[in-house]
């Protein structure tokens, strides 16, 4: 199969999967098989893109042309491939987890859930492989819409309220800022194609570059830069597998991925720094990192704490992009992958605690580690990786991000990164500490480990955190190709 045919297949396969899930809704076992088969097929297809991309080729294909200069086109470049390679395998793992979780929790409307999930993955692949900003915008919006039924899955008033915040912020920012930036860019440059070094001519004034760049950075609401981050905590009303894959990996990473794409291929690193478009935005990102960490410390609800931790970690990647240096891009790109593995492990563990022990608050977790040792061990590994300690993957991306701040001579930002890591220790590691070392005084004989499917998924992603520490070469190579 040529890479050109593989590209559209990355979107078609999950869509067909969604259809198959919908058709086999009456037979749950068959339906879940469909999800898993689709996941494996998707992973295989994405993998076929690895050799050509590593060899430096950029396979591309135009699907349809709508308006002049605005084709719907796909291409595989290193950053998109990196994103897809994170999302595709984690989808399989999450599906295994979701099967255990949804059955263990006796959730309703499971067919709609798995079908919408597959559509969301198709949209994610579209974001990853978009060849121009118009195509990316299209799939970005499709991702918002397809995740809405997942966020409001519970169907309660609370879920609907959360869904409204989720949908409201993401749609408003994308239409008011991002689409405006899109149209404005097109009206200035006549194209929205991603190109090495950006598409802006040198004659475009600095203030316009600054305005457009800010419109993009805030308009990409999925990157959860403050003050447009509220949708992410609101989305936590979703079932935990959704929070795990979509709100730790696919949706939020689609956001920061888009910020990176825009910085590298729409503006170009030099254009951004020369125009000084990133100066004040860097401080917004730094503030997001710190404030979100502080808020996370005050949250007793486990998922809310993880959500704010995600907001903070997304800030790292945005910071890397905003530095607009090779090291910054390198660190940001790697953090997409390393944070994904760490955070999904944490969410898996949080969901497992919810299913097995019906606990949702941090303060309820005292002593639970002894009843659920595997879950809490996985949580510890994920947390350590996010803090950035060896021997876990999170170290590498934080390492390069820190180097990037030093290289850019922005020591204040370096301080922010280090302080935030300390805060991470405080609010993430506190959880397993409570679980293992405190005693609730309650009788825990009734409690047992999470369903096996959940444990398996957690084990895989926790292992991923370790493996990526010892074998980061592949990730590093891809990220280096992005940085140039």
């Amino acid at each position, binding site marked *: 199969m040529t890479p050109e045919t593989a590209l559209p297949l990355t979107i078609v396969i999950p869509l067909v999967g969604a259809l198959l899930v919908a058709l086999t809704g009456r037979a749950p076992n068959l339906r879940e098989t469909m999800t898993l088969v689709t996941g494996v097929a998707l992973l295989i297809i994405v993998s076929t893109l690895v050799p050509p991309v590593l060899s430096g080729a950029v396979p591309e294909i135009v699907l349809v042309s709508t308006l002049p200069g605005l084709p719907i086109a796909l291409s595989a470049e290193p950053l998109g491939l990196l994103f897809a390679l994170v999302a595709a395998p984690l989808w399989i793992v999450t599906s295994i987890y979701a099967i255990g979780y949804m059955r263990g929790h006796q959730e309703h409307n499971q067919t709609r859930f798995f079908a919408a999930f597959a559509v969301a993955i198709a949209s994610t692949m579209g974001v990853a492989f978009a060849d121009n900003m118009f195509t990316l915008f299209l799939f970005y919006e499709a991702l918002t819409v397809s995740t809405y039924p997942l966020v409001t899955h519970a169907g309660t008033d609370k879920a609907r309220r959360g869904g409204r915040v989720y949908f409201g912020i993401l749609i408003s920012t994308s239409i008011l800022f991002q689409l405006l930036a899109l*149209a404005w860019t097109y009206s200035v440059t006549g194209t929205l194609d991603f190109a090495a070094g950006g598409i802006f001519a040198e004659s475009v004034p600095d203030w316009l570059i600054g305005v457009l760049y800010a419109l993009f950075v805030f308009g990409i609401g999925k990157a959860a830069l403050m003050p447009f981050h509220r949708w992410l905590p609101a989305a936590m009303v979703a079932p935990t597998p959704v929070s795990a894959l979509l709100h730790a990996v696919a949706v939020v990473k689609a956001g920061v991925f888009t910020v990176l794409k825009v910085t590298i291929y729409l503006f170009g690193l030099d254009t951004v720094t020369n125009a000084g478009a990133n100066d004040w935005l860097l401080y917004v990102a730094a503030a997001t990192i710190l404030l979100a960490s502080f808020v996370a410390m005050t949250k007793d609800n486990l998922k809310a704490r993880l959500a704010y931790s995600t907001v903070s970690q997304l800030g790292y990647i945005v910071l890397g992009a905003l530095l607009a240096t090779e090291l910054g891009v390198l660190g940001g790109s790697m953090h997409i992958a390393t944070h994904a593995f760490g955070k999904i492990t944490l969410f898996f563990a949080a969901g497992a605690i919810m299913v097995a022990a019906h606990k949702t608050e941090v303060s309820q977790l005292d002593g639970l580690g002894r009843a659920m040792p595997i879950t809490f061990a996985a949580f510890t590994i994920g947390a350590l990786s996010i803090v950035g300690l060896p021997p876990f993957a999170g170290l590498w991306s934080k390492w390069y991000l820190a180097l990037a701040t030093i290289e850019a001579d922005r020591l204040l930002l370096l301080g922010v990164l280090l302080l935030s890591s300390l805060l991470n220790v405080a609010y993430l590691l506190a959880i397993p500490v409570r679980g293992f070392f405190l005693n609730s005084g309650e009788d825990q004989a009734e409690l047992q480990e999470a369903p096996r499917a959940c444990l398996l998924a957690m084990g895989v992603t926790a292992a991923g955190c370790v493996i990526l520490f010892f074998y980061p070469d592949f990730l590093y190579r891809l990220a280096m190709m992005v940085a140039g």
Partner: protein
Amino acid sequence: MEQLPALLIVVPLLGAPLAAMLPSGRLPWLLATAVSWVGLALAVLLLARVLDTGTISYAVGGWLPPWGIELRIDLLNAFIALIVAGIGAVVTPFAGPSATAEIPSRNISLFYCLFLLIYTGLLGITVTDDIFNMFVFLEISSLASYALIALGRDRRALTAAYQYLIMGTIGATFFLIGVGLAYSLTGTLNIIDLAARLPAVADTRTAHTAFAFLVAGVGLKLALFPVHLWLPNAYTYAPSVVSAFIAATATKVAVYVLLRVLFTVFGTEYSFDYIPLTPILIVLSVVGIFATSLSALTQIDAKRLLAYSSVAQIGYMVVGLAFGTAAGLTAAITHIFNHALMKGALFLALGAVAYRVGSTRIRDIEGLGRAMPWTMSAFALGGLSLIGVPLTAGFISKWYLILAALEQGWWWLAVVVLATSLIAVMYVWKIVEAAWFRALPAHHANVTEAPLSLLVPVWVLAAANIWFGIDTRWSAAIAAQAANVLLGGAP
């Protein structure tokens, strides 16, 4: 083939009295359907011919212009005629079951007679090159609309029709006064001839007055804010088919008349440089877009909600033409086409709802997403297009409009367009949420999907919204050429 322009008027004009004479039943409907399909074929042939050979001039009765009445078809009016005929050809089949359910059977023949008269009038306005003739056709279609709206089954239809009658007549009178003044200055009624003679007398007060009366008159007809108040009632209480047809075509044809008056009769320079029409129209439209979008948000009847949204959409068209640039005109003309598709689909879908449920109040739409999935999915598609989601027709016109605003350096206007799109998200969402996220009330438990004869027209238009969101060769590309023609460039 030479007779094409005349046939476009003659065929429906003969069909109308014929329909009135047929006995009530299926016959008048079959006749109207046949006429509308012939009309569509004629409009397609006409557009093909114009694309092939350029502007066509047809002297009615062999009397040469400027003395006789001339029918003059350039790319713009061929395009508009195609929109009218196309919507007519989709809507008329829908009328079969829908009108039978909503109109007393003794009035059915009359209904189709009036329907064909509107159709005739609208096509007549588009093809004629005689400004008095234009007034006559405007009145044919308006008078027929008043009567058709009064046929609605709600008693409030009568007041709505009366209100429309008063406002519409004021508009028509203003237009006629304008025509009279222009005639007194130039001694001609032929539009091309007027355009040639007006510049010599452009500085006179009579010319200014004529301009003001013409623009104000057409403004009333196209429901320009703040003289739009007749429209929501008229659209709400008219029979479903009539709402769909006039919402998709009548105001669009009025926009076409405005285009002709501004760009052809008086010319771009006079309308926009000499008379400061741009700020007037932009301020009115922007305020109107906001006000009516917000009104739409508070409606409890889906048809009324769409009616308010229509006024807002007309605002977008007027903003586009108010730039007086090629980009703005392209946006306006594209939106005429796309808006016909989206409002046609939406009103027809509500017609199908009314057919099954007997009401279009949002409360009565609750839970219909499951009971009438095909109808409501078509509605949702139309709604997406109304919002302007990419890959739907609505996106194309909004995109052009935003580009046109940015080209002028008016980024705030682009923000207005986007912000009001957000309001559209909210009001479309109100209906979508009612349909899919609310339970079906017990008294609607036996509601089933609309019959195929209604679904097919609804879906033809819904699918067209997607098709023309991707393939813009027959919408935006032709609109761009038509804009060029209007600005006096080569096609």
